[in-house]
């Protein structure tokens, strides 16, 4: 309690600076609106659709029979009900881990090869970013409805919750350090309170997104990986159980939000 007092005092005193901050925020909103008319993620959606249909891997098969939760090959609406439990793998999976599963089972890639190159770098594009863009776009406008009923889904939620609040690393940060209060920001970037549906419903549903600072689409797995790096926690492995647990945790508060992916972000 003691520590909160100075913050409150500052809030009361901040008149001039607060107004300036609001003006800045308005201008940044305008910047984002002006960019909205042409989202480079469209290019990734198109490439993703091609990749979905392209015969690849040792089995030279496409992903068109991939089951994303609504049945083999059903893409429309699939993203809106992820992450969820899958009986064929007996675990909870998100979009990217499901794409990895299909790469192995349908296309014949080894598990090691199937997780290679998840995040693009200059001169090296990632198929995952394109596939995620395509699949997410096929749920655009639908409400997120990730299930939380199967025992493994509930277990994943509890693990995600533990991770969300657990302070660690050299900065003693947890996710909650940045995402635990309304109205926080880092420099000019607003930080959503991820356990408040008001924020979560608007933010969680805008991933994957074209990030202009990265010049590519970034997925939720990348967002989490990046957060862990920013917190100076150990590396969060791609499609690890921990990453999916965090997504299950966040999805609970974001459920009901309208999917506006792929989004467009700084």
């Amino acid at each position: 309690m003691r520590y909160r007092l100075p913050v409150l005092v500052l809030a009361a005193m901040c008149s001039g600076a607060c107004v300036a901050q609001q003006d800045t925020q308005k201008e940044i909103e305008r910047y984002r609106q002006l960019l909205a008319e042409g989202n480079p993620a469209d290019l990734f959606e198109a490439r993703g659709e091609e990749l979905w249909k392209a015969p690849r891997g040792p089995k030279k098969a496409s992903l068109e029979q991939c089951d994303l939760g609504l049945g083999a090959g059903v893409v429309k609406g699939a993203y809106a009900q992820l992450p969820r439990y899958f009986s064929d793998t007996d675990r909870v999976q998100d979009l990217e881990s499901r794409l990895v599963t299909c790469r192995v089972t349908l296309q014949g890639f080894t598990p090691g090869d199937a997780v290679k190159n998840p995040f693009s770098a200059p001169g090296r594009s990632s198929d995952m970013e394109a596939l995620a863009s395509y699949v997410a776009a096929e749920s655009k406008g639908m409400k997120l409805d990730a299930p939380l009923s199967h025992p493994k889904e509930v277990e994943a939620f509890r693990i995600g919750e533990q991770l969300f609040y657990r302070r660690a690393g050299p900065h003693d940060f947890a996710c909650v350090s940045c995402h635990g209060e309304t109205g926080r920001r880092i420099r000019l970037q607003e930080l959503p309170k991820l356990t408040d549906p008001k924020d979560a419903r608007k933010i969680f549903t805008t991933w994957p997104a074209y990030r202009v600072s990265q010049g590519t689409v970034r997925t939720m797995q990348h967002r989490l990986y990046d957060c862990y790096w920013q917190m100076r926690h150990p590396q969060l492995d791609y499609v690890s159980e921990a990453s999916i647990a965090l997504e299950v945790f966040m999805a609970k508060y974001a459920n009901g939000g309208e999917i506006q992916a792929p989004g467009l972000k700084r």
Partner: protein
Amino acid sequence: MDIRRRGILKAGGGTGVLALAAAAGLIRAGGAFAQQWNKAAFETKTVAATLKALGGGGSVESAQVQIIAPDIAENGAVVPITIESGLAKTQSIAILIEKNPSTLSADFDIPEGTDPFITTRVKMAETSNIYAVVKADGKYFHAVKEIKVTLGGCGG
């Protein structure tokens, strides 16, 4: 017919750079679309030098040239900018970014029948003035706007 004819008119009637470029063979001929790329103009590093390279050394500020862009760009890699000219017989619209390593960003030719209106996205190295330079009826006009480039946060 149109493109080659315009090419000839430019090389023949233009000042300085384009005529030199044509003479030096920098204008690549051949094919259905004779592509010109004003190398000298894209290498200038000041607004004055760029204007000169474009032939617009005597450019006049005009309220008829409108720049629609945010005051603040969240990220300098992608800055949306719209330029609209209310001047009759607008022939071209160029975008100059004062503090960029190369000042000239783009030069759009506006044929008759096309609105003197362009929206595109540019990279800005830092907070800088942006100049919209319009050639209308053989004369040059411009507008200026400062766009601040911020350091962002996390990009969520």
